[in-house]
């Protein structure tokens, strides 16, 4: 037992030397999470910010000016000013000048005070459905609010409906992608690097040398995994730190519990990489296989971006095999909701079970001959 542990540490130390001797891989490991966070944080952002909104006012009036300046003042929109009536209201959309167009009737001011009320038209660029519907809601809300203020009237009290948004009341996408990226990056780093690390020994012929030494298969594997557990943990920490400092995402739950859950997830991810490496003979095959087995299902099927409940049944079945699905439930639970083991034991159990299964399978498949 003691000798076995010693050999694992020897193998782990050697693997660690490989990592620090390869600055490019090391840079990828450290930079990838940060770059991905900035990409998701700034580019893949469906928050609306300064969208171009045109107000078509055939006859400018006090009411139309109040509306224009109010809309322009909101952070959602940027309103360059009102434009006169146009024969082709879709022209600004085609030319990309506008994402939304608010059309006022010529008798806007007067019709506001008429019993039937004023008729407005909102045209929204729906090429990105989620941005489109959010813009529509924002325009409608802003118009409603401005005109109420302008006319100095209260909304009629027929139904008082107030929505309460939990866990992410401002609907910031950072709250959503930081946990998601934990799932993606931990999986990618762990699965990808281990699959390559073991395949490399096969490709360079050193696997034969390792097999002739007293190292047992389990020890070779454990020694290989050890440094990558450390790396993945560092990456997890890095994501949390960048999420906190730059995107303002605070962990609502217990950090220690998050760390333990993440380690179980990393173990599962490493086992995927291990299984890939027992099959692949070349490093680039291993890389492609590991990417295919981790990246796509994690981003698309885990519920990171698209809700699992809206998928067709057979994809839902696959989604419930993907380990990231469970980790995402856990990590969102801890970071956003602040819940603990009592609420999360189920996904945690499944995740751990998947990890053990994959690990056992890859040890079994690991060949002690060439």
């Amino acid at each position, binding site marked *: 037992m003691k000798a076995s542990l010693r050999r694992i540490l*020897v193998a782990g130390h050697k693997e660690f030397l490989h990592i620090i001797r390869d600055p490019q891989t090391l840079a990828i490991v450290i930079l990838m999470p940060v770059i991905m966070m900035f990409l998701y944080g700034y580019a893949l952002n469906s928050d609306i910010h300064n969208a171009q909104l045109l107000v078509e006012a055939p006859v400018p009036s006090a009411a139309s000016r109040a509306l224009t300046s109010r809309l322009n003042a909101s952070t959602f929109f940027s309103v360059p000013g009102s434009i006169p009536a146009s024969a082709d209201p879709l022209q600004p959309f085609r030319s990309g000048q506008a994402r939304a167009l608010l059309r006022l009737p010529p008798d806007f001011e007067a019709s506001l005070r008429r019993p039937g009320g004023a008729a407005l038209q909102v045209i929204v660029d729906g090429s990105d459905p989620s941005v489109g519907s959010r813009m529509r809601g924002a325009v409608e809300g802003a118009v409603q609010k401005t005109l109420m203020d302008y006319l100095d009237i209260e909304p009629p009290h027929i139904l008082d409906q107030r929505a309460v948004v939990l866990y992410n009341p401002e609907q910031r996408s950072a709250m959503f992608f930081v946990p998601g990226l934990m799932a993606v990056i931990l999986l990618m780093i762990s699965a990808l690097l281990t699959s390559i690390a073991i395949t490399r020994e096969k490709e360079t012929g050193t696997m034969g*040398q390792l097999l002739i030494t007293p190292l047992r298969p389990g020890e070779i594997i454990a020694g290989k995994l050890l440094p990558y557990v450390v790396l993945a943990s560092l990456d997890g920490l890095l994501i949390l730190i960048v999420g906190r400092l730059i995107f303002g995402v605070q962990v609502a739950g217990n950090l220690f519990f998050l760390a333990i859950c993440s380690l179980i997830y990393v173990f599962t991810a490493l086992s995927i990489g291990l299984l890939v490496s027992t099959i692949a003979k070349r490093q680039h095959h291993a890389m492609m296989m590991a990417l295919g087995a981790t990246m796509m299902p994690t981003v698309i099927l885990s519920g990171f971006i698209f809700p699992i409940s809206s998928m067709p049944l057979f994809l839902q079945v696959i989604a419930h095999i993907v380990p990231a699905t469970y980790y995402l439930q856990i990590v969102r639970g801890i970071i956003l909701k602040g819940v603990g083991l009592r609420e999360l034991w189920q996904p945690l159990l499944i995740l751990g079970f998947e990890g053990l299964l994959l690990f056992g399978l890859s040890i079994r498949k690991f060949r002690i001959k060439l």
Partner: protein
Amino acid sequence: MSLALRIRDLIKDHAGEKALKGISFEVPEGALFGIIGADGAGKSTLMTILATLMDADSGEVEELGLDLKKDFKILRHRIAFMPQRFSLYPDLTVVENLHFFADLYDLDPAEKQKRLSDLLKFSALEPFQKRRAGLLSGGMKQKLALCCCLLHRPSLIYLDEPTVGVDPVARRDFWILLKSLKSEGITLVVSTPYMDEAKLCDTLLLLDHGKVLDSGSPREMLSRYPYSLYRIRGPKPLAYSARKEPPQGVSLVYPAGGELRAAVDGGMNASQDDLWKDFPGANASESMTPDIEDLFFALLSREQASLEKTVK
């Protein structure tokens, strides 16, 4: 004399071909045993099997008194294998490679240190300890690989073409190392495509297309050389090699070194000198003693002849 290796009828299909077609031989303990053969003769397959890294399809192997198939785990502690390709970690330094392999065997620190410094001295790698293995010259890489094999003091070492791609000076150095290991009583099984290295071994196995052509000590084998060998001076050897049929009475003509050699059945006397008129530009011939290469060609051509006969 006890045996380090006893092999009976070893058969292996590898990569869709019959790599070993029933091989049998014995290696006495403490021998420097050479396996000679061209590329594709089955040397590497044979070595990989004997080094416990690949299973044979059938046949029996007794290695250091143990059964290869049953006891391969115990054997792995007592043998070493130096594969054909450089198989250490190029991104680790010389010492780091040595430390890694040493640490896998539970040596106490003082013993480990002693073995490391002995090996560095033995291999003359001492000045290069801090150099990354990937940056060593071909000869130094092979010496390092040999050192890594020796850390656990194996009693049997397999070396698969250790001197291929190594310059002549480094090759000679490497063989000096092998000789000194032999003097320590370690059994060495070395494969090589170089005939000049054959005479450095004390027992040989000539391998061709997965079959044993001959085996024995170099002297023993050469005493069985079936022809009289002549060296022909004059013609450019490469110009001749295009010719297909040797002249009548001559079994075999081939270029070797910068000359042509002719193997002739039975003794040929000087009056038969006119045979040489078939060789454009030949001006003299003289009798010579065959070496392993000549024997190899002789056995090979006989093998081919018998093959052709069976085909017919």
